[in-house]
């Protein structure tokens, strides 16, 4: 009997025992640096030689003079100088609940390891593990799409790698850290079929929380991935499209003159910051990116980053490559963000259009919104984000009404707010998702896609002369209120935006209103609204459809955040946020289906009043294609509001493009030569997503062919660019 019990308990123990951990970490140093170095991971000797090179002299000098424990430890590692290690020991004796501090302690522990006694190693490793427990209490959002998760993940990952072998708790951290790493990697879209991108927010290099929280989310992620690789656990950077695309996300999101970075979603630092330089620095070194190098020198040269980061990750050998040879506009697919500019010159016009899925907190109920800048902000998304959940945040900053969206008013609609604002105001806009039970992983996003699939960009073509983008955003609204909202945006560079909005409400009784916000005072007369700027030409918005739309100017000082009879003014604006703005409300007559067509003239800075630009409706379409002329017939535009037929654009200087992708069983094929033959002959090689683009084409007959194969597609370019000329 006793023997049976023994057998049973032994079997139970075996069954319950954790799997034997199959990983072995190398000797210290193992974080960013190893003794010998290999591939992209620098070795100690390599770094010693680097310290003597003149191009690293500045960073090395800063390192030697640093009082930061981890930088002192790095100097010790490279020089053997023990004189200031007391500062390292002092720091390692403490704990922290901040993950960036835990990373610094981990680096200090790892780099000074050879100088520590055995008892010190055990003691300091225990402090790192104690810090991990503090991190677990502080960062309690287990969501792959959110920066908080990346924050904890980075801290715990670093501490685990540093303390491995010196504190048994480190091994216990491996399963959750590995799991969260897998969850993060699968939202990036690397190595995935193009028809399997649902829920992969990172497809294209973006970050769902916008540019400011990308400085946390993606920057934390790449730090852990660099340490993961140097510790010998796998390289998830080399060959990753996400990190290559990150350069494009930052480059295209930077304003033409470098005075801003796109401020969409929660963002109270809408300008270039040291975090961005850190990211570009590591990408410059990792990928040998001349584009990243050019961006740093052009927009971030004066911003200071940590000395150890510059010393370890920058590569002064990389030559600057300016972006002039790149298309001027780009789609960041995973977040549904079109970043468009008229040229790579500093005086270019910049337009953004956002229509994507909802992934996580810090996103706004603003699918389908856009903004425009030409030397200064022209069409804006006003409001102040200061990190607090206030009436201003819940009822204005994150809501559709504070963006350039369509409102559909069902007066009985109720929204979901936080505990402090349990009954948010009804702006007629999109559903608030910030306080819903958010998806933590790709699998959860897909299980909840009925709610999270708020918007998607269904067409995007770019050419040097114009861009055309289509977004479907009905999914952002209650299905009991909006059945369809198709927005098409035609950007005729650099002067005009034409918007087409086809909106189908669930009831003709739900009024539909198009909103445009400007930083300048506005006036409206008839079907035209225009700004009254302090100097230069005004922005003009021509409401061409629907007939009988009512234009009403609202906002202004003391009234900017007012609607429904309530004022939602919050804290004073700071950091280029807009505390005062005007808006024009274009309200359609009561119909179940409504087409708005709006032409917006974006004035050149400093230009006088000579020649008032005009927009004229030529053909209302009767439910079909709408025709209009701009600038007294200079440009002719046709748009089908239902997006069933291609747009048309003609006029002086207008050219077209042909684009598509080369795929193999749905997977993109990079590096394939593609040729264009016909009225013009061109060659190009596909990018990391298998894409190609031929721009500046005149109308005519063309053949696109895969060089060296018999695969070809014959096309005719008439009055619009062609996308999706694909090979699979």
């Amino acid at each position, binding site marked *: 009997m006793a023997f049976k019990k023994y057998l049973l308990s032994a079997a139970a123990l075996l069954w319950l025992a954790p799997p034997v951990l199959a990983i072995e970490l190398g000797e210290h140093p193992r974080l960013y640096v190893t003794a010998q170095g290999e591939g992209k991971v620098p070795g100690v000797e390599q770094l010693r030689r680097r310290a003597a090179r003149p191009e690293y002299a500045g960073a090395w000098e800063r390192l030697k003079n640093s009082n930061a424990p981890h930088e002192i430890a790095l100097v010790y590692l490279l020089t053997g100088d023990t004189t200031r290690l007391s500062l390292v020991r002092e720091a390692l004796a403490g704990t922290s609940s901040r993950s960036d501090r835990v990373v610094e302690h981990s680096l200090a522990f790892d780099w000074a390891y050879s100088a520590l006694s055995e008892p010190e190693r055990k003691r300091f490793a225990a402090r790192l593990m104690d810090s991990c427990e503090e991190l677990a209490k502080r960062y309690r959002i287990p969501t792959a799409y959110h920066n908080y998760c990346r924050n904890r993940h980075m801290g715990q990952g670093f501490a685990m790698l540093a303390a491995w072998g010196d504190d048994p708790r480190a091994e216990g951290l491996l399963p959750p850290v590995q799991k969260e790493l897998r969850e993060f990697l699968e939202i990036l879209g690397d190595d995935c079929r193009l028809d399997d991108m649902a829920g992969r927010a990172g497809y294209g290099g973006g970050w769902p929380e916008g540019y400011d929280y990308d400085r946390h989310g993606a920057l934390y992620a790449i730090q852990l991935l660099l340490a993961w690789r140097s510790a010998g656990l796998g390289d998830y950077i080399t060959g990753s499209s996400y990190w290559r695309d990150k350069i494009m996300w930052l480059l295209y999101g930077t304003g033409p003159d470098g005075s801003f970075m796109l401020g969409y979603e929660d963002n109270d630092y809408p300008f270039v910051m040291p975090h961005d330089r850190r990211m570009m620095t590591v990408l410059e070194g990792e990928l040998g990116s001349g584009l990243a190098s050019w961006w740093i020198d052009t927009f971030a040269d004066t911003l200071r980053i940590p000395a150890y980061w510059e010393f370890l990750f920058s590569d002064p050998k990389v030559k600057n490559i300016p972006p002039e040879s790149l298309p001027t506009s780009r789609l960041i697919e995973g977040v549904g963000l079109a970043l468009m500019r008229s040229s790579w010159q500093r005086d270019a016009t910049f337009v953004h259009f956002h229509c994507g899925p909802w992934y996580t907190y810090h996103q706004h109920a603003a699918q389908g919104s856009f903004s425009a800048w030409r030397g200064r902000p022209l069409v804006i998304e006003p409001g102040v984000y200061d990190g607090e959940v206030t009436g201003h945040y819940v009822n204005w900053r994150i809501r559709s009404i504070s963006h350039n969206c369509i409102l559909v008013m069902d007066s009985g609609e109720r929204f*979901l707010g936080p505990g402090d604002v349990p009954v948010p105001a009804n702006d007629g806009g999109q*559903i608030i998702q910030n306080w819903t039970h958010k998806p933590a992983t790709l699998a959860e996003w897909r299980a909840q896609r009925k709610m999270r699939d708020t918007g998607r960009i269904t067409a995007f073509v770019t050419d040097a002369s114009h861009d055309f983008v289509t977004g479907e955003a009905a999914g952002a609204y209650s299905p009991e209120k909006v059945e369809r909202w198709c927005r098409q945006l035609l950007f005729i560079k650099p002067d005009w935006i034409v918007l087409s909005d086809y909106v189908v409400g669930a009831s003709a009784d739900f009024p539909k209103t198009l909103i445009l916000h400007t930083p300048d005072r506005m006036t409206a007369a008839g079907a035209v609204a225009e700004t009254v700027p302090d100097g230069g030409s005004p922005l003009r918005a021509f409401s061409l459809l629907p007939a009988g739309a009512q234009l009403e100017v609202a906002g202004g000082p003391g009234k900017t955040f007012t609607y429904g009879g309530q004022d939602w003014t919050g804290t004073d604006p700071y950091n280029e946020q807009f505390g005062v703005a005007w808006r024009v409300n274009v309200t359609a007559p009561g119909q179940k289906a409504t087409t708005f067509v709006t032409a917006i003239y974006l004035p050149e800075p400093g230009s006088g009043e000579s020649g008032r630009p005009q927009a004229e409706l030529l053909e209302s379409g009767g439910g079909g294609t709408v025709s209009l002329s701009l600038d007294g017939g200079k440009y002719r535009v046709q748009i089908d509001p239902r997006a069933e037929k291609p747009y048309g654009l003609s006029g002086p200087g207008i050219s077209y493009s042909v684009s598509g992708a080369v795929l193999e069983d749905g997977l993109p094929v990079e590096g394939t030569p593609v040729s264009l033959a016909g009225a013009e002959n061109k060659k190009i090689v596909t990018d990391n997503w298998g894409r190609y683009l031929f721009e500046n084409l005149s109308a005519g007959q063309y053949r696109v062919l895969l060089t060296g194969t018999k695969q070809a597609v014959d096309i005719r370019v008439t009055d619009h660019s062609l996308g999706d000329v694909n090979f699979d």
Partner: protein
Amino acid sequence: MRSARFGVNRQNSQFGFSGSRRKTALAVLVIIQALFCACLERNSSAGDIVVRLQLPALSDCQSQTIPLMLVDEDPNIVFCLVKFERVYASQDELLGEFFRTLAGHQVCRGAVSRAGEFIFRDIPPGRYWVITSEPVLAGDERLVWSHPVRIGEQDSSQQVVLQRSNAAMVLDSADTIF
């Protein structure tokens, strides 16, 4: 402060010693006083939460009543904790554990019918959330609500209307979208 219930009991005991007409008059007075005291009590320290369901697409196969819970812990925090503790759970397992965990924070239970309303009565001042304690079938969707509600010192009642627009989670199994 004397409670309304204590007042009623005391008056009832007087009522037991009186004769016919006076008894009736006293009884009426006692009832009025009891109601008045109850109202005073509610206005100063407790309120009602009226829950209504507005969901045109409510599925026929959904049971006639939707079970509700009133909880005093933020369901988003609970959901995050459940995810930390159930690292490898599926979406359905997470939901099951989420509802079980919330039951530990339950203030009271109820159920709302398709076209009717439910009232959580005499709820002390504080922050609460109205939870549908199982997913609700509506068309091809399964919906979960976690609606915040606050009872202030002076509140007699708060209304919570559950709609598609304020659902906390919508689940389905559609195809790939991109």
